């Protein structure tokens, strides 16, 4: 559901949650992106930064510069006239993935849960364009929605989270794909690994010059299946800092 007007929810005294619905849809996501744009452009005194997500935006502010009440009043003024956003800038980024095997131990489980073969899961997952609906949890980790898939892949998450997920793991939980940028615990089913960094704390590859994080809300990903040998070859290029990302700057509309 998308609400008629945004809800302003306290997140302590330095953050405000602006919620526009309770669904994970492109429509909700586009509204949040539009809201984010409007707030950024308004340059409200005391606002520090925004964090747009699936269906809400977390705004951090300095409550010594602007009281919560004044902030909400200001936001209401801005967001009452928020235009319906139908098109956003959206990069299309190719990421190589080695599916299955040692780095994708849950691929067969994903296949069984969807009554498909592992090969069919790989085909569907890599043919489907994925939408970045939110970035976070750990640095640069994208939450990805399948855009008009030929068959929606879905799988239960781990009942008890594992302690260790290797860096670069591509995993499915529910119908959301995530990529693990750093070693961390996790609950999504591990389908494969990408040899390409989406988070580079040293900012050594040129793409990371401005930020150690590759992806942002509104980007789209295309996973390209590679075999183990090519995966190693790409990894080598990343080490040598000669890997070049395949990125197309486009727009996407609903």
């Amino acid at each position: 559901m998308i609400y008629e007007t945004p809800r302003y929810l306290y997140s302590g005294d330095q953050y405000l949650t602006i919620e526009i619905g309770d669904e994970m849809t492109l429509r909700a996501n586009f509204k949040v992106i539009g809201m984010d744009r409007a707030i950024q452009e308004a340059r409200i005194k005391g606002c520090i930064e925004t964090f747009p997500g699936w269906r809400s935006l977390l705004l951090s502010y300095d409550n010594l510069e602007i009281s919560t009440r004044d902030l909400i009043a200001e936001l209401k003024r801005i967001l009452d006239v928020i235009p319906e956003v139908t098109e956003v800038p959206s990069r299309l980024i190719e990421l190589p993935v080695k599916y299955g095997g040692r780095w994708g131990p849950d691929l067969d489980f994903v296949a069984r849960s969807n009554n498909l073969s592992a090969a069919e899961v790989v085909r569907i997952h890599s043919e489907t364009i994925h939408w970045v609906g939110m970035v976070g949890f750990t640095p640069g980790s994208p939450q990805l929605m399948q855009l008009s898939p030929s068959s929606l892949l879905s799988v239960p998450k781990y009942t008890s989270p594992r302690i260790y997920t290797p860096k670069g793991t591509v995993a499915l939980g529910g119908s959301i794909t995530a990529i693990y940028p750093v070693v961390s615990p996790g609950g999504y089913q591990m389908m494969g690994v990408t040899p390409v960094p989406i988070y580079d704390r040293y900012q050594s590859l040129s793409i990371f010059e401005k930020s150690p994080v590759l992806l942002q809300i509104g980007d789209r990903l295309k996973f390209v299946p590679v075999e183990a040998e090519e995966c190693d070859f790409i990894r080598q290029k990343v080490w040598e800092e000669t890997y070049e990302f395949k990125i197309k700057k486009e727009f996407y509309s609903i």
Partner: protein
Amino acid sequence: MSQATLEVIQPGIFSTVQDLGRRGHFASGIPPSGAMDRFALRVGNLLVQNPLGEAGLEMTGLGMTVRALRETVVALTGGSFEADLNGNPFPVWETIALRPGDLLSVGKALAGWRGYLCVAGGIDVPQVLGSKSTYTLGGLGGVRGRTLKKGDLLEVGLPRVSLHSIQGRKVKEAILPKPGAEKNLRVVLGPQDDHVQEESIETFLNSDYRVSIRANRVGYRFEGPQLYFKKRAESRDAGLDPSNIVDDGNAIGAIQIPAGKEPICLGVDGVTMGGYVKIACLIAADMDRMAQLRLREVMRFKRVTVEEARYILEEALGKIKEENIIRQ
């Protein structure tokens, strides 16, 4: 120009370089980091006459031993720690001059849990994304993005004033927090308190909670009574458990209650998003208090309004001023 001024002889349990944190990268999943107890860091910097947001060393539970390689002036603030300088007792909340070869040894926390060592001129490490703060999960800032280890050489910036002029400065007793004496963490309800049954909100606000051993800069887990959720309409995207919501951004200080058990209050290195109901959020001023809670300590959550929270923060920051420093 910076010069190696301190050598880490023994690093303690979890010692890092911290300033007041970084801004502008939350939307990329990078939390602010920075000192958990900002009051202690700011006052430490005031003592040695650094800018209040300058980087110092944060120690956790068990402090560190450092050797001075050059002349400098330092101040130890935060919790009360066993500490000695070349074997002689070392005071907290005042400035002490170190000479080359001096051994400053900070031991166990006696009261409170985090200590801050501020150095005249500030710890000089490169700014990463606008801050010197260490964020270990993302490997950013501080010394190579990690906790300090034996043998690390720490450089210090140029002091703003002469070292001689900042010796013998001490904080007035009246403005010092009393670790262990204050048993409340003040919270503002929301953003999802409306998912929780009213009786359970009362339970949350009126029960003793114990700090679990799973307590660090990412989050503090508290042991206490079971909380219950309201029946909700079926949600396609939220997940099966009533404590699940459609993922949203986590404020620093947000208190998640997965399955209604063991509230987790996020620290300054907290995960930036999640899919659990957040019953309330810690007010900014009380991150300092949480930072000083000891493992297994018992405390309570107390409700305040956002207006009260603002007043509390203003009052806390107002204490950090030159008038509250005594010259001995």
